[in-house]
């Protein structure tokens, strides 16, 4: 073990595997069904809360002035192949570990009553999911990363396939095949990199210069995997189906954390390791992202299912993220990271909002609702806040990332900024249209006349998200400070790398 760990103990491994231990304990619970369910819930909640509390060490002890990896742990694993078990976080990844550990207890609390069957297995799957997510963001070895990256699929597949809606099997298989298809190509890239660099250590790979021709192929392989995960247009159609069929907590994690894996992959591998290919393919990514923003926003406008609408809005928001990443300037990347975090919080919260009424009425049909403001003022207020954050109102989490990406994109091209920001208008249209149909108007259906406002448990679920949404909007510096150094270093390195290849090619750099 590396002695230079800031926490003094293998914090990241603990964060990664503690949920697995909790899950194992849950699977050992025996007894009558009701007791098992209740014990499983409490055990899962406590496990996830302890993990979250532990992860706060990252928040307080992370050295924001450093661009390097921190809390690094290393253990020999397959030395003859150059593969080590290596964990660590830098400014890019640290907050995503926290996002994952913060969302899991919220999801468990949100599933408290809505999951009634196989509660023990549900909680187990969820904790395994947490292990995979944290491990993926903390991995510093490509092989370790790949295992977690793929591992995420399994619990998510089960969450959709077992606890999902009526078309859950179709959605689960579609989800699995889409994401797996991309991943296979990433495995090829992994092998190629390992072959070229002799190591799968991520910092080593970052320092390796791949030949431009090789970069192109590697980039495409990575792209196939990450684009599906983001998801980018036109490989996004698995997402609405997966969301619609997934249980509420599954949607929250899917939108909140899993969608970030693709963008994180671009930031961890494509941009730093393949600078020439990044520059070469950026226009293609911009084009796809702009299409994603406009196309999926329009599709969201036509939706009749609440979850599908929010799922499509996620694709549009992630389009902004991919634009930001590939501008490779500080505002663009910083904005993309912020947008990823804020989307994690806000769209997670929006799926929870859908979950609240779904638990009561068992319908996601927008037309089924209307006039909820009369009976559910607290709910209406929370929903309004998250809608506005989704729309990108200044003062909420959604604005900062969108605006920074706009500035970053403007440095590249006027049209990229203008078209990429069309979401400002279309987003307002579909979110307010949704809000109007669900919350405003008069109650016409009998079962809505007695619908209950948020329960104390639901308020406990929303409260942290409300605080985060406002905090991120009013004082975003407490988040951006984590990655400023890393982003700065990444951009500098990218510019230097491009300059050196131009020199090699005999091009005079002005």
């Amino acid at each position, binding site marked *: 073990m590396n002695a230079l760990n800031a926490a003094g103990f293998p914090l990241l491994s603990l964060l990664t595997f503690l949920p697995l231990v909790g899950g194992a304990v849950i699977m050992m619970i025996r007894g009558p069904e009701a007791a098992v369910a209740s014990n499983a819930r409490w055990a899962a909640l406590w496990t996830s809360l302890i993990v979250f509390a532990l992860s706060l060490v990252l928040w307080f002890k992370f050295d924001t002035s450093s661009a390097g990896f921190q809390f690094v742990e290393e253990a020999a694993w397959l030395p003859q192949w150059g593969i080590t078990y290596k964990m660590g976080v830098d400014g890019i990844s640290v907050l995503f570990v926290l996002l994952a550990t913060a969302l899991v207890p919220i999801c468990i609390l949100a599933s408290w009553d809505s999951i009634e069957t196989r509660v023990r297995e549900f909680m187990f799957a969820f904790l395994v999911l947490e292990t995979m997510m944290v491990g993926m963001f903390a991995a510093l070895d490509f092989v370790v990363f790949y295992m977690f990256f793929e591992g995420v699929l399994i619990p998510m597949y089960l969450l959709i396939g077992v606890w999902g809606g009526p078309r859950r099997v179709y959605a689960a298989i*579609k989800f699995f*095949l*889409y994401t797996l298809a991309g991943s296979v190509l990433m495995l090829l890239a992994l092998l190629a990199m390992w072959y070229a660099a002799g190591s799968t250590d991520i910092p080593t790979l970052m320092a390796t210069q791949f030949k431009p*021709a090789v970069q192109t192929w590697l980039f495409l392989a990575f792209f196939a995997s990450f684009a599906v995960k983001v998801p980018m247009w*036109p490989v*996004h*159609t698995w997402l*609405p189906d997966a969301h619609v069929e997934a249980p509420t907590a599954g949607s929250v994690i899917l939108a909140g954390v899993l969608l970030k894996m693709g963008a994180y992959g671009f930031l961890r591998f494509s941009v730093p390791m393949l600078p020439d290919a990044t520059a070469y393919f950026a226009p293609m990514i911009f084009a796809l992202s702009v299409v994603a923003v406009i*196309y999926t926003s*329009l*599709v*969201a*406008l*036509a*939706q009749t299912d609440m979850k599908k609408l929010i799922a499509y809005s996620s694709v549009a928001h992630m389009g902004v993220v991919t634009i930001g990443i590939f501008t490779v300037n*500080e*505002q663009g990347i*910083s*904005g993309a990271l912020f947008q990823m975090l804020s989307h994690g919080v806000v769209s997670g919260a929006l799926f929870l909002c859908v979950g609240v009424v779904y638990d009561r009425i068992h319908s996601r049909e927008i037309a089924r609702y209307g*006039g909820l*403001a009369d009976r559910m*003022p607290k709910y209406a*207020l929370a929903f309004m806040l998250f809608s506005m954050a989704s729309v990108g*109102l*200044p*003062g909420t989490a959604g*604005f*900062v990332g969108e*605006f*920074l990406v*706009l*500035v970053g994109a*403007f*440095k590249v091209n*006027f049209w990229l*900024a*203008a078209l990429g*920001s*069309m979401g*400002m*208008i279309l987003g*307002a*249209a579909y979110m*307010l*249209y949704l809000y*109007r149909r669900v*919350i*405003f*108007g*008069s109650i016409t259906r009998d079962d809505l006349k007695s619908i209950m406002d948020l329960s104390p448990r639901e308020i406990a679920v929303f409260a942290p998200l409300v605080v985060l949404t406002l905090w991120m909007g*009013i*004082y*975003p*510096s407490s988040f*951006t*400070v984590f990655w*400023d150094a890393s*982003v*700065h270093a990444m*951009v500098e390195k990218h510019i230097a790398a491009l300059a050196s290849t131009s020199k090699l090619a005999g091009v005079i750099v002005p």
Partner: protein
Amino acid sequence: MLFATAVFAPLLGSLVALLFGKQIGDRAAQAVTIICMILAAICGTSAFVSLVYGGGAPGVITLATWVSSGDFSVTWALRYDTLSAVMVAMITFIATLIHIYSVGYMGHEPHGSVWRFFSYLSLFTFAMLMLVTADNLLQLFFGWEGVGLASYLLIGYWYHKPSACAAAIKAFVVNRIGDLGFALGIALIFVVFGSITFDAIFAAVGQHQNDSYSVLGGTFRAYEVIGVLLFIGAMGKSAQLGLHVWLPDAMEGPTPVSALIHAATMVTAGVFLMARMSPVLEYAPGAMAFVTFVGASTALFAATVGVVQNDIKRIIAYSTCSQLGYMFIAAGVGAYQASVFHLLTHAFFKALLFLGAGSVIHAMSDEQDIRKMGGIWKKIPLTYTMMWIGSLALAGVFPFAGFFSKDAVLEAAYASHGGFAKYGFWCGILAAFLTAFYSWRLLILTFHGAPRADKHTMDHVHESPLVMTVPLMLLAAGAVLTGFTFAHQLLGEHWQHFWGAAIHNGPHNHVMHDMHEVPGWVVALPAVVGLSGIALAYIIYMGMPALPAQLADRFGGVYRFLLNKWYFDELYDRILVRPIMALARGLWQVGDATIIDGIPNGVASLTAQGAGRVVKVQTGSIAHYAFAMLIGVVVLVSLYLIIR
């Protein structure tokens, strides 16, 4: 600290009412918000007085860092100069009166829900205060979007009404179109100046004079592009021609909201932005010509529509649109001071007119159609007087406030050079005639002639309570006094002393001087056309009440064109709303479901069929397998050779 208190007291009131309104009840929520507003008004006025008359120094109050990324960094800060101080004083004063008036106006609302209304009103005021006191463009944008949100909430306050919900969404979305332009403008300013803090931008204006920016296939001076983008934002918020469609619908909200939107907050934001950014805009003559052109067209367009409308609030709404046009004419010719002056006087008389209209509606049991009014002036004499004062000010009759500011705008337009300025002047003169005409049409149809309401309504006609009429009287005092009190200070020979460095006039911009040297007929003309408009309305509607209907019959096409507001809504519905919705459904059902999902599903079935054939290939003969492998290797190697 006075200044900061003025800005944040409304926020405090709003939050208390929002979070605890249910517990403390309507009365307490009203008391809290109004006390906070009065505090804000006292502090705001004191801050203004001490800056302009007490020798206080302008400055910046920094509160905290906001967004910081690389070289992009902005803070939460309040900018304290004449422009912001005068706006803060006006906003807090008028908003306070509107709060007080609302106690009476919302008295018939079901109990236990009015706290929401007061919370939103205070939030609206706070957002506008943040907008005018911003020290950088991003904070201005925060306030800018904040008033958008608050207006959405207030227009849609009666959320049971489908028309109110539709109007609320329309207001937000149309504003967002402008906001996109504004956001792009901010980004371009950052790219050009490397900062979006006002002091840094203004200090560097000289260095980037000749920067250029390529867009739309042409290369333009960066300042011109910035000017146009910022003005697109202003067009949305200030309801200029093309993006004006939300404003008339915004009257779906309760009347005090209309007063707040049309007078103190929201629509004035665009005009304020022009004045705030004057150091840059002064060097963008092309953009400024565009501003004048759009402003002038709006002034005339809205006035023509106002002439035939029948809804009392809608007439006043179009008059706002038209008056905003005047403000942009002045801003476009470089007379930002005149533009802000008209903004101030307009705030008073427009709030007065809207609240007066509210008092009429209140008296008429919620009737808004002036064709169903008439003959009530003796029953509500106080409201009647107030409406007269407001109309006199709007029509620009001496010595009411509008006379001074409207004259200043038109003189500046005349004094300025260039075709657009002349266009602005003549549009303004024509609009002044129409304004006076429709104002008296409204007065006469509403208050005079035979009663056209049913007896039940007529029996109920009553003067509003003191809580509503006292704010009216205070606003009326403003509509009478603000003109001649401030005209000399804001625009007279010592205008530089009043404004300090808050507004910048370029070295070649002498309009502030030249506007006082125009020929006598230019000074007299607005008053003459105004009085003739009044006279014409009097003759037609008092003398020949049958004539308007005959004219409408005779010129049916023109009448319907105006009545339907030049068919803007229908046009947008045809060319934007419906095609976009159709496209949205098409992309979803054809693009996503058929094409994109069709490919993988097709692949899946191909795979299934393929698998069947593969089974046949598995013959068990090693020779066959070896042959297949060989072919595979050849294909791979040749692919490798070709591609590399």
